[in-house]
């Protein structure tokens, strides 16, 4: 569905849903998710509806993802970094009450 512009230089390697993706420096984690497509859709916390990143400006929260082990991050607000591990948020985040 989404693809890189021909002139883009995709140099940063990240992982989305276990799949290696090359994205340009300065792109957001949400952009990397869009490159992967529907497989990178999150599932909402209440109804489980599937959503991909939408507003790309920090407003709609449809890009929630677990990034490098931190749950519920707004992927559109997080610039990619070499080796970043991105997984769409599936349902409400977990919290271990005994670990804190």
């Amino acid at each position: 569905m989404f693809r890189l512009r021909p002139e883009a230089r995709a140099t940063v390697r990240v992982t989305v849903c276990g799949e290696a993706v090359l994205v340009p420096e300065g792109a957001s984690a949400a952009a990397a998710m869009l490159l992967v497509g529907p497989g990178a859709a999150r599932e909402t916390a209440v109804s489980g509806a599937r959503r991909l990143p939408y507003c790309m400006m920090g407003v709609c929260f449809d890009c929630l993802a677990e990034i490098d082990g931190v749950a519920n991050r707004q992927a559109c607000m997080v610039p990619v970094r070499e080796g970043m591990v991105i997984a769409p948020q599936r349902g409400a985040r977990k919290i271990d009450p005994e670990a804190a």
Partner: protein
Amino acid sequence: MTARAHDALVVGGGLVGASIAWGLLRRGLSAALLDEGDVAFRASRGNFALVWVQGKGDGQPAYTRWTRLSASEWPGLRDMLAADTGIETELQQPGGMHLCFSEAEIELRIALLERMRAASGNHGYDWRLVTGAELRDMLPGVGPKVIGATYTPYDGHVNSLKLLHALHRGFVSGGGAYLPYARVTSARAAPHDFVVETQVGSFSAPRVVLAAGLGNRDLAPLFGLSAPVLPNKGQVLVTERTRHVLPLPTVCVRQTGEGTVMLGDSKEDKGLDLSQSPDVMAAIARRSVDSFPWIGELNIVRAWSALRVMSADGFPIYEQSRTCPGAFVANCHSGVTLAAAHALHLAPMIAAGELDPMLAPFTAGRFDVPAAA
């Protein structure tokens, strides 16, 4: 313009007004619900949504009884609203906890709940102090600063926005007339004969119920009533949704049906002021993390403030006008907890034209005692 005639006019479209209006409709009365609109101070949209009994009514057993009556009838209200509207209000009543951080706090709490047990007589009042392993078992991840908690089995919580929605939908689908932007501008009151002028027209009825929260203060004198209520500000923080962790609500922290964690219970007397303040928000956050350290891992996604509707002694005001019978006032700061009592008990009393003696302690006359010199 001719006044539109109804059996009853309810002034105020929040939880108190909507509960009563829905209840009047169930009694076969035609009713108009006159709602000020979104400029109103909406306690019904900013509350903490507890159905709470523990500790309420110290010094006024009638308030304890009224509160417990409502809590015990809440499952019935939930079922009726669900059948009527298809809206689930997410009621859960697993009991509730009040956390204590010091021995002194525990002593005060024990004294309070023992007083309440004594005042409840044969009606009974179950409570117990929970500590140690049992406390950690009942409240997963409770913090080490919490040295004990008092438990009563009567408490619970709901989704209060869905409650408000359900009452409004049930009222309208049952044939009630909901009038938004209907701020009351004046009224002519005679016994069982009322004409109320609003921004959207005139309405007449032999009964008027004032349920306008803080607005009752100015409305009540028009009907020979008195409602000396004042605003008390509460601020609330809400976290992102998480999987369910907290099996029961506490006074200051509860996890909602959809997974957010609400943090609150600040109290400020600042007049009609809805501003939020970093110091109060920080204090709420600090106490919440002291209560449950795992809350510190969560993001706060929303925060707001709202105004409680408080009388001088904290108890409700219910009264029928002596000079203009047929006019009633209803004020309280627990529109969620008392929704079942208002819909299923108070509304029938108003329909019948007389408040039950069980509500006699709640007339506004109790505030008229002159202060000792």
